């Protein structure tokens, strides 16, 4: 049955996450202004909060599905603070890739490590088939030799290992690209520097250099060394990782824009602006009308996220929908945070409040995990039934 009400169990989870998120928010400004001083794994005041997994105990089939509630949890966390949130719990993007593409033995072996994911290079981002980093097998030692550079690696410093994309044969295009697991400490693997960013500054973003970096032959994810003739299903397999990470990225962004909306409403109300949803447009103040517009955008976008996750919960394909919600969420959070500052005027731009930080933090949403344009490309190909050569 179509329903949008939360059960008591759902509320219990979200209330607890929100309470903890507010603790994180107390640290938001500090780690924003002290860019490379990363927050500790556990904040002193957050010690007594129940561990995440325990919150999910006792759920029944009458509660909201795990995928949907996880998206709401992600939003509730970033509503507190984006980066301080990121510190809690282990696991990075690379862990999702390991689960999607690793053999059972590989998952067993490395599943406990925090893994970053490094696809992007100085010369390629949106089009990962242009990856230049090379992997060459040295049959004498049964090792892969990696050479190349990776940039913008999230959790790059903190991670204990990384999944990198490298090509076995540049002339083979996407078919030649494989993913490898490189543990920190591998010879020739250098963390070159930390990036300085517009927002999400407490987030650890690093650049890597691989110089004749040697890793064991068994570190090729999935273990398939041959280059398939046709453009590979393996590539598509790795891309599938994004079907849940894209909704999550959108959800995280929307948590931040929700914080911006909540703050803006509070401030406007304190200044005497009336929010009454009953009257028609003709009887609304310009401020209230604009606020409702942003609020509708927020809800519409969050609903597309929940829809993508619900499809996954009910074992239905959600490739199209995960791009829809990433595109919608990415654009929505930009407009919402820009609009909130506009509604509050100079106060909105002051560093005395977090709104200006949320405006900076949220901007990443429409860029990583596939830009808004790339999502539209994916959507357009699907609805037009075009392949990647027909629409680039």
């Amino acid at each position, binding site marked *: *049955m*179509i*329903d*949008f*009400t*939360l*059960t008591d169990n*759902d509320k219990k989870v979200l209330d607890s996450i929100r309470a903890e998120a507010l603790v994180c928010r107390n640290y938001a400004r500090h780690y924003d202004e002290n860019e490379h001083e990363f927050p500790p794994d556990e904040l002193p005041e957050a010690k007594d909060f129940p561990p995440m997994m325990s919150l999910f105990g006792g759920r029944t089939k*009458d*509660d*909201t*599905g795990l995928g*949907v*509630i996880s998206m709401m949890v992600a939003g509730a966390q970033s509503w507190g603070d984006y980066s301080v949130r990121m510190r809690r719990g282990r696991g990075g993007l690379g862990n999702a890739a390991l689960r999607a593409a690793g053999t059972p033995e590989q998952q067993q072996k490395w599943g406990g490590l925090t893994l970053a994911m490094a696809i992007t290079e100085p010369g390629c981002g949106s089009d990962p088939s242009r990856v230049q980093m090379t992997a060459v097998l040295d049959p004498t030692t049964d090792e892969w030799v990696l050479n190349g550079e990776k940039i913008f690696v999230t959790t790059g410093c903190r991670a204990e290992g990384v999944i990198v994309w490298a090509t076995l044969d540049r002339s083979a295009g996407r078919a030649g690209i494989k993913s490898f697991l490189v543990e920190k400490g591998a010879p020739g693997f250098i963390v070159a520097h930390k990036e300085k960013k517009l927002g999400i500054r407490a987030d650890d973003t690093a650049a890597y250099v691989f110089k004749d970096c040697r890793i064991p032959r068994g570190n090729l994810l999935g273990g398939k060394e041959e280059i398939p003739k046709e453009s590979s299903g393996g590539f598509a397999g790795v891309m599938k990782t994004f079907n849940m990470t894209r909704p999550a990225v959108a959800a995280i962004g929307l948590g931040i824009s929700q914080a911006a909306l909540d703050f803006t409403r509070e401030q406007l109300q304190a200044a005497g602006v009336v929010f009454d*949803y*009953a*009257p*028609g*447009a*003709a*009887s609304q103040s310009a401020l209230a009308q604009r606020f*409702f*517009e942003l*609020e*509708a*955008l927020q*809800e*519409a*976008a969050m*609903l*597309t996220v*929940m*829809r993508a996750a*619900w*499809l996954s919960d*009910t074992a239905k394909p959600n490739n199209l*929908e995960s791009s*829809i919600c990433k*595109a*919608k969420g990415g654009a929505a959070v930009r407009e919402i945070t820009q609009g909130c500052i506009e509604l509050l005027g100079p106060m909105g731009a002051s560093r005395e409040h977090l709104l200006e930080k949320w405006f900076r933090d949220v901007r990443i949403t429409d860029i990583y995990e596939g830009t808004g*344009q790339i*999502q*539209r*490309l994916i*959507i*357009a190909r699907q*609805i*037009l039934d*075009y392949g990647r050569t*027909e*629409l680039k």
Partner: protein
Amino acid sequence: MISFGPTEEQEVARDAMREFAASAIRPIARRCDEDSQTPDAFLEQAWQLGLVATQIPEAYGGAGEARSPITNVLVLEELAHGDAGLALAAVSPALFAMPVVEFGTEAQKRELLPLFCGERFHAASLALVEPGPCFDPTALRTRAERKGDGFVLSGVKCCVPLADRASHFLVLARENGGDAVQAYVVPRDAAGLALAAPEKNLGLRALTTGTLTLERVEVPASARLGGDAGCDARRIVNLARTAQAAVLVGVSRAVMEYAIPYAKDREAFDEAIAKKQAIAFTLADMCIEVDAMRWLVWQAASRLENGIDATREAQLARSYCAKQAMKIADDGVQVLGGHGFIREHPVELWYRNARTLGVLDGAGLV
């Protein structure tokens, strides 16, 4: 529990409406628009779907199925995908009957509901919208003043669906000079009620609408919907806004589904225009927004279904859908270029309909 899954019955109903919209609505939509007329034959045909009678309790001659705002928005999206004007015409008796089901006194239900349970289409309508700028469904100009046991109604109502055929009107008015809005059942032949010639509108022309002038129309106390208890006019407006938003989803989906094959087929500069990103991304945006709009509508409908106040959700759904539908229809015309401007294609019709619907705040009640 958050769920986007319609029930099996809802899926069956939705599929049946989709089929009806394709076979019985879309083929006549252009002609009805050109004629500015809702054909009686269409109304009879649509009546067989049982859109109204099924939701009337058995005690008053209906099928007694639970009234579901969720089913209603699913049905409306499909019918409006065929044509928004004809969709609203087909459900217009519900504008009158459903408030009676929800708020009517026993005597009102016994007198009025059987009218909608017969074999033939029966027209009765809601008189909500008022002419002139700054119309707001919660701040009406039409007044009801107490006089003796009854009321005297004065004001002007426009955009009244099928006013030319309606046996009764449910007139919304402010009572005794206060802000509270109540509804009054006014028979068509009431003294002081005048009906102008059918309106000429930009869009929704397939729906015949009329303007009513109420000049000191006297009605007995029993005409007040719900008697002494009155009705919850806010819920009526919330239902209306949600339904109207659903119609806008249907219109938007129609534009998208027309523009996609057109863009694949039409060539310029040696390839299909759909292969140009400017066009492809416009189509992708339509796809994104049709989804986003629909979930806002479902969210509002779900609250209405659960009897939770939906004022906020209905307002957000209506205003969002009005804005996005206008953009989608606008982009639809652009994707077709000059052909979008020509009446051989339905896109200009949807462009007019989207603009018209978007400003009829609260006028799409079912």
